[in-house]
């Protein structure tokens, strides 16, 4: 799975949690999940658990702290997929 495919899947997972739907129009790897997309911080865990299911990976508690931007999420998933 290449980075573009992962990115598209990540955006699809994020979409229901996004409060600032306008920010989705210009979404990129640099988009901040909490600040730009206004995803509720408590729901970030749900998002990451959906990443686990969608990509069949296991994400540790510490890894969640590294997920600030969409790019961070894509990199983390790429690393876990190997």
């Amino acid at each position, binding site marked *: 799975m290449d980075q573009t495919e992962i990115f598209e899947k990540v955006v699809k997972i994020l979409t229901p949690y996004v409060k600032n739907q306008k920010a989705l129009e210009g979404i990129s790897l640099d988009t901040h999940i*909490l600040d730009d997309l206004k995803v*509720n*911080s*408590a729901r970030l*865990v749900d998002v*990451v*658990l959906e990443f*686990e299911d969608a990509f069949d990976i*296991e*994400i*540790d*508690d*510490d*890894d*969640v*702290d590294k997920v*600030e931007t969409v790019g961070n999420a894509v990199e983390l998933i790429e690393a876990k997929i190997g």
Partner: protein
Amino acid sequence: MELRPIAPLPAGARRKLVLQREISRLLSPLAIPLIGIALRWVLGYQIENLRDFRREYRRIFLERDGPVMICANHLTMIDSFVIAWALGSPWWYFRHFRTLPWNVPERSIFAATLYLRIAIYVLKCLPVERGGDRTEVTEVLARLAHAVSNHEVALIFPEAGRSRTGRVDPDSAASGVGRIYRSVPDCRVICVYLRGDQQHNYSDMPVRGERFRGSTSVIEPKTSHRGLRASRDVARQIAQRLAEMEQEYLDDRK
């Protein structure tokens, strides 16, 4: 259950924690009775089964020494003070200072002024910005985990914020409480459900003259999950127990 330590606390942060605890201990003969007086005589609050709460809290520590964290429902901004008041008398806290819980108040509210910052420092609070910088949030979790593993008590609200529907929602449990629990071996969780008779929804403060009732329950959640899912599962189990206690409270009132 797989233990998963939170990143070790740097020596500087450990020293700060000890310093805060000792300053708090030093000022506690003044601060704790003042809080009690404010709650009981200025705001007119009463706790219906105060003796039961305090007896149960004492029993938990006398029964078994070890790490303990308190998880409670959250409806007003001063819940942590009311809960600490319910669980122990000033005399109990002077003699067993470690059982006075560490709290994690929202920084934007409780650390807004210098006066408030000093007050919450003395009252064993570690302010945090909910939804803020994740490194900072993790460091506060690490401080709490360090305190709990050293047999001090921490009070955490599994839902993170006040229950917006006025009812405990297990689905809204944040994973932080699970992370702390999973990082401390043999930790017990005291679930505390406490609610004022006139508290129909969440609010800033309970009404003046409010009468509180509630209960406690000790649990030791287990999970077969790993990683983040394990933390979330533990947090949900705790919030689920609180939801059951809430139902018991509501059934009692019928």
